[in-house]
């Protein structure tokens, strides 16, 4: 079947891309080759329109799954990169016009850039960008050359390094697009507007004159870009750095030499700087898999009840209101509700600033939230989330209260981060409508939600919870019932191990440093302070009770909590906070330590191994369905370094056998390797 159809009427040829049996157009070697054949057939024309047969999508880029395969092989990589360049060069010699009425990413944009003109529409689905560097590669079909040459070095470089996607309006403004049309009238206006396409004289402002048109300005531009990039990647992600070097090297070359240099760089770096690509692509698919998971059945939630207006409750209420749901948030008194309401308002101010929303939009969203000081008022809400403090007896009272008044169809969920569903639902009349919905703190930043299936949770209830997460823009990870579910088991066991290492004699500075050097976003003590030591202590108790010796934490945190050090919120935790400065809490440093010493590698090894072992147990117990789900959960839930592809992928890379051997070497019951690891 053919993906490209070439038609011609008068002097206008139209080449339509419609990949068979696919939702979006992507480049495969076959579709790329077919494009080349079609381009060779084009005769004497005044315009060649490149269009898409897919609604809301122009070209989504290269087929990632296929591309990942090519990357493994030098010859295959060379072949695909060179073919792309050859085809796009042919395109650039024709009077070609890309008609972008939808998603235009990666290779799709590189094709559009090779065209002589680009038309964009007001279709809200128009998203234009080069996401390659976030996947561990860089645009290799001319993107690093043609984009900066078209829109300017500064804008082009920033688009390539950040992978940021822009809409049609912005594309027109920065000169990426030559003309804008209304999507709804595209068929009416397209042909008659072609006469308006003219090669525009490049008009660059004063800023460009200063930063781009002279060697000193360029030096400054690239050095700022490099500094900002380093701050973001902390040196763990070489792909954008390679792209930046490449752009700088080729900035003053003619296009042809620049393109050649792009090919050479890509092939040279394939096994070096671009070697993280498989991990990042794997992670991309692991997360996509969760985002796009299908449920058996579900009901649409329009109105959400939230019990508790604390950190989590107000966060969930904010999110739901922001995403268009109406919300009823409750707490035990108006003081607490008022505090939660203020927090919600702050979150709205923050998002308004970031997304440049007008005050009136925020005002409308705030009005979606109602409040009450009784849990018997959830009459309109079809889904109620409990987000009270981690206290089993209290939760049971709340559920009893809710069940008194809500309809039979109302779903009840708990945001508990560690308590088992089976414990919480003990007194419930209808445990089949009960589900876990574990949001992470802070709700407005953390993308993951653990959706917990209890032993009696109905399929539709689970499905509704999953769909609700998607609606709220979160990534749902379905797990089965156990204490701490997946993410907190991993979090807790690593923390326990690090505290044990402290107890044995490792200085906290070294622990922080070692953990950061692995690529974790923050050190363990910084993290614990942010979560809150009181909260962490509660989680540890639950975990220890449930899992015994392997989760037995030294009582350091309990002792700190007793001194009133509750973490960052109280100004004192493992650290003492003064304004922007922090230093270790002397109460903590005064705690007794042994005299053993460990290298950074040993610290990383031990803390990773216990996590891998715990994840393997969770897999064995069928708490979580697959290793790839653990990968997504570990990255999104606790910040496992994305470039390592996720916890289990990392484990596979270093080898299960090695992990088993290292655990066995510790010869202690808490390090007993799981069967899952032993079986390999």
């Amino acid at each position, binding site marked *: 079947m053919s993906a490209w159809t070439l038609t011609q009427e008068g002097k206008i040829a139209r080449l339509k891309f419609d990949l068979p049996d696919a939702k979006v157009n992507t480049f495969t070697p076959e579709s790329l080759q077919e494009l080349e054949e079609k381009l060779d057939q084009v005769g004497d024309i005044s315009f060649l329109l490149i269009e898409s047969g897919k609604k809301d999508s122009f070209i989504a880029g290269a087929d990632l799954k296929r591309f990942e395969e090519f990357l493994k092989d030098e010859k295959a990589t060379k072949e695909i990169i060179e073919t792309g360049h050859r085809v796009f060069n042919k395109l650039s010699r024709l009077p070609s016009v890309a008609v972008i009425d939808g998603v235009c990413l990666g290779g799709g944009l590189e094709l559009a850039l090779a065209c002589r003109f680009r038309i964009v*529409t*007001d279709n809200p689905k128009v998203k234009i960008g080069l996401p390659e560097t976030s996947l561990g590669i860089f645009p290799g079909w001319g993107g690093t050359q043609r984009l900066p040459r078209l829109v300017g070095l500064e804008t082009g470089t920033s688009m390539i390094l950040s992978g940021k996607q822009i809409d*049609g*309006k912005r594309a*027109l403004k920065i000169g990426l697009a030559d003309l*804008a*049309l*209304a*999507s*709804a*009238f595209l068929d*009416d206006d397209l042909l008659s507007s072609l006469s308006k396409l003219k090669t525009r004289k490049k008009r660059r402002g004063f800023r460009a004159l200063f930063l781009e048109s002279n060697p000193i300005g360029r030096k400054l531009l690239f050095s700022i870009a490099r500094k900002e990039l380093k701050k973001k990647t902390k040196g763990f992600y070489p792909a954008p750095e390679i792209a930046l070097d490449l752009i700088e090297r080729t900035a003053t070359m003619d296009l042809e030499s620049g393109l050649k240099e792009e090919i050479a760089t890509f092939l040279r770096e394939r096994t070096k700087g671009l070697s993280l690509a498989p991990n990042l692509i794997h992670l991309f698919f692991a997360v996509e898999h969760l985002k796009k998971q299908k449920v058996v059945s579900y009901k649409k939630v329009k109105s959400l009840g939230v019990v508790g207006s604390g950190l989590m409750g107000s966060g969930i209420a904010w999110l739901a209101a922001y995403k268009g749901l109406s919300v009823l948030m409750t707490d035990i008194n108006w003081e607490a509700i008022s505090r939660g309401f203020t927090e919600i308002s702050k979150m709205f101010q923050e998002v308004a600033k970031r997304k440049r929303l*007008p005050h*009136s*939009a925020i*005002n*409308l969203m705030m009005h979606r939230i109602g409040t009450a000081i009784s849990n018997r008022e959830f009459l309109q809400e079809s889904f109620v989330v409990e987000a009270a403090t981690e206290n089993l007896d209290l939760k049971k009272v709340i559920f009893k209260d809710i069940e008194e008044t809500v309809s039979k169809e109302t779903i009840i969920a708990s945001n508990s981060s560690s308590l088992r569903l089976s414990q919480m639902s003990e007194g419930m009349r209808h445990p089949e409508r009960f589900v876990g919905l574990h949001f992470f703190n802070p709700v407005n930043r953390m993308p993951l939600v653990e959706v917990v299936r209890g032993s009696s949770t109905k399929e539709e209830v689970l499905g509704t919870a999953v769909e609700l997460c998607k609606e709220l823009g979160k990534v749902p990870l379905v797990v089965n019932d156990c204490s701490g579910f997946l993410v907190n088991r991993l979090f807790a066991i690593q923390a326990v191990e690090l505290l044990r290492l402290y107890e044995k004699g490792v200085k906290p500075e070294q622990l922080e440093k070692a953990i950061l050097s692995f690529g974790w976003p923050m050190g363990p003590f910084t993290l614990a302070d942010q979560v809150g030591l009181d909260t962490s202590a509660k989680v540890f108790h639950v975990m220890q009770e449930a899992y015994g010796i392997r989760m037995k934490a030294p009582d350091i945190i309990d002792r700190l909590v007793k001194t009133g050090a509750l973490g960052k919120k109280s100004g004192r935790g493992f650290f003492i906070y003064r304004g922007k400065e922090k230093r270790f809490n002397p109460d903590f440093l005064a705690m007794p330590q042994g005299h053993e010493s460990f290298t950074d590698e040993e610290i990383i090894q031990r803390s990773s191994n216990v996590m891998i072992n715990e994840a393997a147990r969770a897999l064995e117990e069928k708490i979580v369905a697959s290793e790839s789900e653990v990968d997504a959960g570990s990255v999104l839930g606790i910040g496992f370094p994305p470039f390592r592809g996720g916890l289990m992928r990392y484990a596979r890379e270093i080898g299960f056998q090695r992990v088993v051997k290292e655990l066995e070497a510790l010869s202690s019951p808490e390090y007993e390797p799981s069967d899952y690891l032993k079986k390999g």
Partner: protein
Amino acid sequence: MKRRVAIVDGLRTPFCKAMGAYRHLQADDLAASLVRELIERLPIRPEEYTECIIGNVISPPHAYNVGRVISIKGGLPDSVPAITVSRNCASGMEAVVQGAERIERDQDAIILAGGVESMTHIPITISEPARDFLMKLSKAKGIGELLKQLFAFRFSFLKPVVPEINDPLCGLTMGETAENLAREYHVTRKEQDQFAFESQRRASEAKKRGLFREESIPVLIPGKEAVLEDDGIRQDQTFEQLEKLKPVFDRFAGTVTAGTSSQVTDGAAALVLMSEEEAKRRSLKPLAYLTEHAEVGVDPSRMGIGPAFAIKKLLKKMNRPLSDFDLIEINEAFAAQVLAVVKELSKESGELSLEKVNVNGGAIAIGHPLGASGTRLILTLAKELKRRGLKRGIASLCIGGGQGQAVAIEVE
């Protein structure tokens, strides 16, 4: 409605572009001279009126309940109560509908109902910090405190707060809501230009024939010439001029231009209502009868489609097909919006011919003073039905915020 209500007579002022002829006339002053003229022309003693209902959107800050101010300034005695009503762009129709309902239920005998808007006088306010500053300054006691307060002055206090023109419910300008409808109902730029051209042509024709003079009073302005006619109608409008205009609301890929939008205008209109029996008893020959009304809510971001659903509801209430009606007025907020309404109505009732719609042009040519338009449409429609010897008509408006309102009238 169980009984029809008589529209005894009605009048309006000429509609003039905002910041133009009426730039020094406040809404209450504009409407008051109209009310005085209307009372003068009818054989009804001022004290016989039982209520005055005025539609108005931009409440003048100096005259809360502007209806009462208009009523007294216009010559109705203190004893006649007055109220101001707002249904945004349909306020002038809402005033008539409320009056008719009260008469139908025998709660009132004679009602003066109308609407007014001075789009010129959109209130421009000061910011909250500036307000606090002025409040504290006015309360300062003694020279020391006064000086201290004066030092709190910031230049930013001088920056005026211009009212939001975007709809508070969907965040869009009215023009953007029209763009939405243009896309949804596939109303092309060319169709819009053609419609706007036709509106100007029909209005010019009507003006030339003196039809609007029949329904208008002259407005006197000290030191200036009397205003005798609408000033927005472009006698020499060409299609090419319209074609050349750039989109104003969506400059990126839009279709709606200033030429295909209603004009921002000042104006007032008023009717006198009473029961049919009362009219007979007084041997009055009513201009028309209001037979039914309907209101609907729609998506605020598609507010312009409101009339289509209001008319559908009206027809259902009356159990009549659209074809029973000889003339239709659909307020021309935007050409795109009227054409979308026509397309929506044509879905069920068969093709609605533009020959029946806005036969003397509409707000694109004449202007759209929010509170006054609803009343004017009823007045203009009634006069034209009579002129042509036809029987039934519908007047309707789209309403910012997502509503539609329609009334059915008949003449004998």
